[in-house]
């Protein structure tokens, strides 16, 4: 299969201006293929968040290449990069970021709104996706009436509804108790089996160890990548 990587970063540097400038990412190269489930792990302050932002095109690198589905984002305008996010990237956040004023189904439908998909199709696809994450019975509930685990599943559905090239999950279990954590991680494993590409950013080494591939970040550099080790040995 000659399909391009879901995400490829080559020699990415991210510096924040100052005296001296802060180098948050230092020559980072990583490749995530379609269908992979990887953990990006590292202590706080390691550059994990910056890596997430650059991977998700929320922030642009100072230098280096970030390409998504084979498309170099450096050459795209802000508007086009927003289009890339709308179509190819799904985000799951630690704080869920669900809107309380609307039902679960409309929250999920927000994942399609910036693609210009019509309302009826948005709702249809959202209902299907909610069923996929096991919330088919709570379509019209507002998130404020849901448990933390259920909320995160709504957020996962929102990240999946537009069938992105990959899902970026930033500490998806950070606000959950151990039972809900297990449920959400099981959901992620299930989605991986169905072929979804997922990167889980976490500081929890136990969660990281449960995933097929671990990329460890430290001081803005990739300290280790289990995929590369296995190919070397």
């Amino acid at each position, binding site marked *: 299969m000659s399909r391009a990587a879901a995400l490829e970063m080559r020699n990415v540097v991210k510096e924040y201006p100052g005296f001296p400038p802060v180098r948050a990412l230092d020559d980072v190269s990583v490749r995530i293929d379609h269908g992979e489930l990887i953990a990006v792990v590292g202590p706080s302050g390691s550059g994990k968040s910056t890596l997430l932002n650059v991977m998700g095109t929320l922030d642009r690198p100072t230098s280096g290449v970030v390409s998504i589905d084979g498309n170099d984002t450096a050459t795209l305008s802000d508007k086009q990069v927003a*289009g890339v996010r709308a179509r190819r990237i799904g985000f799951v956040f630690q704080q869920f970021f669900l809107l309380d004023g609307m039902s679960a189904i409309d929250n999920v439908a927000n994942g399609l709104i910036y693609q210009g998909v019509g309302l009826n199709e948005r709702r249809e696809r959202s209902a299907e996706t909610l069923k996929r994450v096991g919330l088919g019975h709570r379509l019209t509930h507002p998130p404020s009436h849901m448990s933390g685990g259920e909320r995160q599943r709504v957020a996962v559905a929102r990240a999946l509804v537009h069938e992105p090239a990959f899902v970026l999950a930033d500490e998806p279990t950070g606000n959950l108790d151990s039972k809900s954590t297990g449920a959400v991680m099981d959901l992620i494993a299930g989605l991986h089996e169905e072929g979804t590409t997922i990167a889980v950013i976490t500081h929890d080494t136990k969660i990281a160890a449960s995933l097929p591939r671990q990329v460890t970040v430290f001081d803005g550099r990739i300290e280790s990548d289990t995929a590369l080790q296995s190919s070397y040995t």
Partner: protein
Amino acid sequence: MTPVRQSPTLASRLRPSDVLRVGASGPRARKMRTALSALGVSIGIAAMVGVLGLSESSKSALLDEISALGTNLLTVESGVGIGGGDGSFPEEALAAINRIEAVEIASAIYDVDASVLKNEFVPNGQTRGLGVVAASQSLLDTLNGSIDEGSWLNNATSTYPAVVLGSVAAERLGISTLTQPTYVYIGEQYVEVVGTLEEFPLSADLDRSAIMGQPAAEEFFESDPAPATIFARVENGTIDANRALIPATADPENPEEITVSRPSDALEAQAAADDALTTLFLGLGAVALLVGGIGIANVMVIAVIERRGEIGLRRALGATRAHIRRQFLTEAVILSALGGAVGVALGIGATYLYSSLQGWRVIIPSTAAAGGFLAALFIGAAAGLYPAMRAARLAPTEALRA
């Protein structure tokens, strides 16, 4: 292959209907705050629409009165002046004025020294503010008056003890119908009521009078044969000329004692005064509207700070800066449109209620209603501009750092 869908340059896109939906999601989720912030604008708009509606309605009532009265009516009175006259017209004054070519019709009223009572048992002092006057037969036509019931004085009834009652007089004397022969007690005798009148335009004195024929008054009540007041209707366009001509015609000996006035002038002055008041209240409404707009701006600034997370999320979901700007601008306009709609409804309601109570014809100025609503939209857009730009400027990474 679906090459179009795979193209990386497909920018994100928000349908116009979704701009509205996204813009409405904020106000919908925070109903109390929405109501309160729309309230300010609605008060301003209601004040403006109400003031314009009321002034239009009251002005139309005034104009109705002016046109009922006619602008060609002159009132001629005689006062005690420095000329040393006795302050009354010569007896032949009415005939003299009638001879002026441009005078279409003229008539006079005469004082009668008597009071009108319901019957002989009412103590003589209790006149209830009513009086007795004598009039020439042409009075009704001259003043554009009209009969409510019965008939006006004719050649026969104006020479016998008979009266026609003004509207207020009939009411105070407890006379509501003339199906039975009805009498009132004037001076020392009962006098038959042959008719009652509708309200006169701008002649409240006559509304409060029992009116008898001048010949009868002179014969039975020894009234003054000299007129007290003369009304003259002149040809349109000759008003100023006649104003100058009438005094010398009415009283050649003491023309300086004669004053000629035009009752419609008073109404026009009132209309002008109302206009000035309307402008003042309109200004107050505009201030209220401005304060309402500032309220919306305030609420929007707070909303942008509070909803950083939502802004970051939407950027992550693919919203561009322009989409965020549009969302918050739409939200502000929705708040003000809500306020505007409620305000227009309130203003129309107030106009309707007050005009009905005053017995005016209800006039809702559609331009004021439409203009008020547009003003609200404009205020909302202006109020939302700065908060929307702030929201759009927020970097997604910053917005997501909750």
